[in-house]
């Protein structure tokens, strides 16, 4: 009788332990799931709420940051634009075409562009190409 009692008590103890452990594991799992859900919801709400305000100033800033900047051309122009400009302003001067009215007009237009872009090598090279094609100038 005593032996049976001890056996039953031990069985109950083992069963109790097993049930308690399983429940604890389940509770932890659900808790973490709830925390994750809360985190996702909070993130979605705050993201919408705290989006960068679209003011005039911000818009101006965004517009200014959109354009690409050609640093290679800037550095090239820093050292090589003067020489190219000096060459072009002499060769493309409208006074070199006094008799041909059409060429004189083209030269005047190109000369104005050259003066406007005297610190931009890329643009000056385009104008040089245009002068070669339209004014038949040999550089």
């Amino acid at each position, binding site marked *: 009788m005593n032996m049976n009692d001890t056996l039953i008590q031990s069985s109950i103890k083992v069963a109790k332990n097993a049930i308690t452990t399983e429940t604890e594991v389940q509770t932890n799992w659900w808790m973490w799931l709830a925390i994750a859900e809360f985190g996702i919801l909070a993130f979605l709400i705050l993201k919408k709420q705290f989006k960068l305000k679209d003011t005039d*100033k911000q818009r101006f800033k965004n517009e200014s940051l959109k354009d690409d900047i050609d*640093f290679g051309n800037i550095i090239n122009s820093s050292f090589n634009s003067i020489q190219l400009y000096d060459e072009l302003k002499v060769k493309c001067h409208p006074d070199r075409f006094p008799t041909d009215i059409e060429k004189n007009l083209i030269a005047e237009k190109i000369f104005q562009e050259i003066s406007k872009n005297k610190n931009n090598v890329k643009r000056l090279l385009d104008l040089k190409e245009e002068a070669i094609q339209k004014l038949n100038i040999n550089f």
Partner: protein
Amino acid sequence: MLDNTWNNILGWFNDRSERAKVVRSFNESARIAFVSGIAPTLLKASISKGESSYKHQFSNWLNTGFRIQAFTGRVLKKEELIHIGKVILDDSNLVRRLIVLGWDTLEIHGDEGPYGCRWQLKDYIPLPKFNEHE
């Protein structure tokens, strides 16, 4: 108020990243130009203290100078320093970008000594007036 603070924090981090990107791109292009022989002098961009009297509506609190220094190669003459400054100021996209990222002073320096030239950036781009309370 919380909204505004959050905007400022986001804006500050964005600006820091963009500022670093501009300096890095300039230095990378200058290095390539020097190595390939396009530029006789190595230029290096950095962020300096700047001139406080040149402030505008986009200016940062600190470090508002965009400094370009001629490093190795030959020593640049004053006219050459002025020319580099003019090339940069003629590029309206670059000037606008420098302004919106908080720079207000452009400095071009030689290799040695305090000798250099300085320009006020806001003189080269018309800045619209914004309603700060919007």
